[in-house]
């Protein structure tokens, strides 16, 4: 672990300097860890992980499905605690959050591992890896919060991989962030059990959940996961007062059935409210899903139209720069309120979170 002197030295540096200082201290087989939360000891040295619906039973010396939690001598350890493999300053629109602190920067971190196996993962180099295999920074929760504040970031984003896998690190960082006046946002697959989620929600301000499809078959075949727990997570987040946005990556021939998309939008409206932003993203061949065309823009536009017809107020098209579906319009008078291109906000015309033309309140946290 980092010595006190090293820690103080880190605090003196900006994020950039901190990364330079802390870069690649830990290599394979030497990631720090701490005892995990949410697990139960079983007989014969095995443990039952209670963090996500997968519910791994892990034998001594083994790691769970996520590769980020290891049973060492009958005790479950969260690998990669205070050892993120990625630290970056990103525009919050990249997460994507379109209704939460627009034009702000999020201090974004990740540790390796994931509890799903999506064949189209964008960050497969770290999500399909273990903290034991990545080059990691040394970054205790306090240093993250301090660095975020120093960099003028309004939020800390737990992102890139599945944050549930570094739950303890995320939780402790979120607590210190809250103390520093920094908000906490996360981009997750939503595959987490109710109890740990409830604890996390005490410190979480916004969540973007990947609703990867709306059929159990899609989750099973393409992600090796389940749909139902993700829907439960969305409902829990809403109940706990966390701002929720949803991302749906539309993959041709896999989850682009418009009737299913319509059902998904109806479910969102009924369970999360019509004010929930829904992002339909264009897919490009990635990771193992290479023998497939990109999503036709027409499909995305039809999906957006269908979701709006289902009653959702804020439906977006992603990964198609210049498309009108990137912008926010007033749901009442249709005035253009936020003009975007890629991750850039080109115009922001809200007045105290309301449409300047008709005064309609636009949902979200704008400042």
């Amino acid at each position: 672990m980092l010595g006190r002197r090293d820690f103080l030295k880190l605090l003196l540096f900006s994020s950039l300097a901190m990364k330079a200082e802390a870069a690649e201290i830990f290599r394979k087989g030497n990631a720090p860890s701490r005892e995990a939360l949410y697990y139960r000891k079983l007989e014969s040295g095995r443990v039952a992980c209670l963090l996500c619906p997968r519910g791994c039973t892990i034998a001594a010396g083994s790691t769970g499905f996520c590769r980020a939690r290891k049973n060492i001598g009958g005790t479950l350890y969260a690998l990669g605690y205070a050892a993120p493999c990625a630290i970056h300053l990103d525009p919050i629109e990249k997460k994507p959050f379109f209704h939460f602190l627009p034009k702000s920067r999020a201090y974004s971190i990740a540790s390796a591992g994931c509890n799903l196996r999506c064949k189209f993962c964008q960050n497969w180099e770290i999500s399909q890896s273990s903290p034991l295999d990545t080059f990691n920074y040394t970054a205790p929760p306090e240093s993250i919060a301090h660095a975020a504040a120093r960099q003028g970031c309004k939020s800390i984003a737990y992102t890139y991989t599945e944050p549930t896998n570094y739950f303890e690190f995320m939780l402790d960082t979120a607590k210190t962030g809250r103390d520093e006046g920094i908000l906490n946002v996360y981009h997750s697959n939503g595959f987490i059990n109710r109890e740990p989620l409830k604890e996390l929600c005490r410190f979480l301000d916004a969540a973007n959940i990947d609703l990867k499809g709306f059929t159990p078959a899609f989750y099973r075949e393409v992600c090796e996961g389940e749909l139902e727990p993700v829907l439960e997570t969305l409902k829990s987040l809403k109940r706990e007062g966390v701002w929720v946005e949803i991302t749906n990556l539309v993959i041709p021939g896999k989850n682009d059935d418009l009737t299913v998309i319509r059902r998904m939008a109806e479910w969102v409206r009924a369970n999360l409210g019509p004010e929930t932003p829904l992002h339909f993203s264009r897919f490009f061949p990635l990771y193992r899903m290479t023998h497939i065309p990109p999503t036709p823009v027409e499909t995305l536009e039809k999906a957006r139209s269908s979701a709006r017809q289902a009653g959702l107020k804020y439906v977006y098209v992603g990964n198609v720069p210049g498309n009108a579906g990137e912008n926010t319009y007033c749901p009442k008078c249709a005035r253009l309120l936020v003009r975007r291109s890629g991750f850039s906000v080109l115009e922001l015309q809200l007045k105290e979170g309301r449409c300047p033309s008709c005064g309609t309140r636009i949902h979200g946290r704008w400042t």
Partner: protein
Amino acid sequence: MSEKAGSYSNLILPLLVLGASGIVAQTVLLRELLILFAGNELSLGIIIGAWVACEALGSLSAGRGLRFARSGGRTFVLASLLFSLLFPLAIYLARIYKELAGIPAELGVGFGHLFAASFLVMTSVGFLHGFLFIGACSLLAERSGAAATAAGRVYFWETAGTVIGGIAVSYLLIPYLNSFQTALLMALANGFASLLLVSTSAKGKRLLPGGAAILFSLAVLVFLARGGAEWLQRVSLAGEWKGKEVVAYRNSFYQNIAVVRNEGQYTFFTDGVPLVTTPVPDIAYVEEFVHFPLLAHPAPASVLVLGGGAGGVIAEILRHPTVRRIDYVESDPALLQAIRDFPTQLTTAELANPLVHLHYGDPRLYLRRTALRYDIVLLNLPLPQTMQANRHFTSQCFAAIRGVMNKGGIFAMPVTGSLTYYTPQLKAVNASCLATIAAAFPHRLVVPGDTNLLLASADPRVAAVTPQLLAARLNDRKIAPRLITPEHLALRLDGEKMEWLGRILQGARAEVNRDFSPMGLYYNMAHRTLLFSPQLKGMFQLAGGITLPAAVTALLALLLLAFLLAARYPAVTVPAVISATGFSAMIFELLLFFGFQLLYGHVFQLVGVLTCAFMGGIATGSLAVTASMAKIRNDRRLLLLMECAIFLFAVFLAVVFKLFAAGDSAGSPAVYASFILLLIAAGFLTGMEFPLAVRLSARFSGDAFAAERSSGLIYGADLAGGFVGGLLGGTFLIPVLGFTSCCILVAVLKGGTLLLAVFAREA
């Protein structure tokens, strides 16, 4: 025996058909499997290796059976017909492999499946082809009454068939027929050849094989006439492209091209992977790739696009009002034809614009020949996965690019990157690209992204561009792209990200990618392997560190083992020598093919000529020795001379490649001719050993009647050596060691087997 002893003229046509069938099946199935795997040099090695291994097994098993002659050719005919039946089935299997294995059609697959599919598809046909070769030896031995020379004669005629088949499949069958039509045509040829063979058999033995051959040929004719091949094509494509509307499917000389339509969008696939999408391409990619370099230049007037111009890139270039001329070089005319056949507003506007000048051909040849000079050169080709592709990413190519640039000109190319995390493999890919560019351009800028954009110039201003400068030029030129805005420029040229990436690449150790030392190819293969087969990461890491002394040490250990084995079991000696020759032949062939592609990639079609040269060399070498077998008194001494010749050839080749690497000799007719001659010589030297080895193995094994039986063993050993050479050569040895060191390695190997042949005792 009622057959005409002493004459084997009726066997010549079946032997030619046998050779042609082998090369046609191998080529067609290789191309089918490459669509499945989006192949690289390793997958090519595995697929060809699977064929060779199965063929070796077939020849070994036939060598044990030896029932061909006694059955009057019946076994041979039935095996030929079975081969013809299984060939189209193997094509079908390749197309529906994913479905069989429960893999969604959209997914690429890893090396586990690559092995499984290659063996599944190649096993039956490869095995039968090897089996038939030995069957032919047995038949010829019986009909000619000269058992000792039978293998050599079969080797000659079969190789001649391979040459004919190789030319036919490359220039006639693949460009004009679909795979099933090709397979059924070969089935017809086999049916007729079988009939010919049966007609010269003993009367009592004609009924079954003759009836089968007639029925088979008629059935194939009827099936072809009634559109059976087209039906198979439709059904199999539906299985391969499940749920997608394939509106065009064709083979060009270079690759397979498929066009898929979906909601008004066309995606053009090459070898199963999407390359171009219209009418809305990957906007972020094309805009960033074009506008960063063009905005970095104060007034770009002339632009050269090397590959991937249609489908967005040219449209973005045309937004710049300063541009007066765009030269677009595309190597595969069939790809552009497909884009033209399914026009969209985007591509029509690009290809019909009077500022755009199309050039079909090899980018490196264009660089060498053009007298034009450019302000901007854009290299828009995927990072190399094969030797053929690597030549556009070497220091020699970048130097040629610099040679066609105006003062202040800017070169740009994309490289796989990340805004999140760099694995050691990804670091190496980027660091190698940067180091290679640095050899030609003193000033560079890396724009970080999920695709890094490398800008390079002789002018130092390229490294000092700021978002403000680019935004001002954007404004001056009145360009309004969809993504590129002042805000986006600031985001992409963010100091923190650039510093981060700079630090990462600074710490990475990677070598310059050169024509004759293609390490860049190796780094790319290692990175791509992580995607599908992360378990091979360690192997690639280990192999990446191979040095010539380490390889020589490992080889010496192997040779020592061969010496010990030969001392205990003399019968091992000749197969060991021959397997080393098979290995050497494969490495020679790969080196000369790759070397030729480096210098003459623009004449890709001439690869067929190279194959003919090599195979012709083998056939001639084999025939030369076979014809003089009766006169040869000292087999062993001749074998030693041949071993010595192969050793010296390897040394000579090392010197030749050293000379090629030192200077730019591309384009010279003398160099072209020398490649042809070297291939003939390589084939001749390796082909000579086969008939002699078959006879000699009898002496080493102490079995006076072993000549016939040992055909299978020697052929199998030859193929096994070729298998290992093919697998290791293209993937590890040539990229990591380079051309010259590979030759030295072969010289050490053949020097070792020469000593083995000198000192080994006979039984």
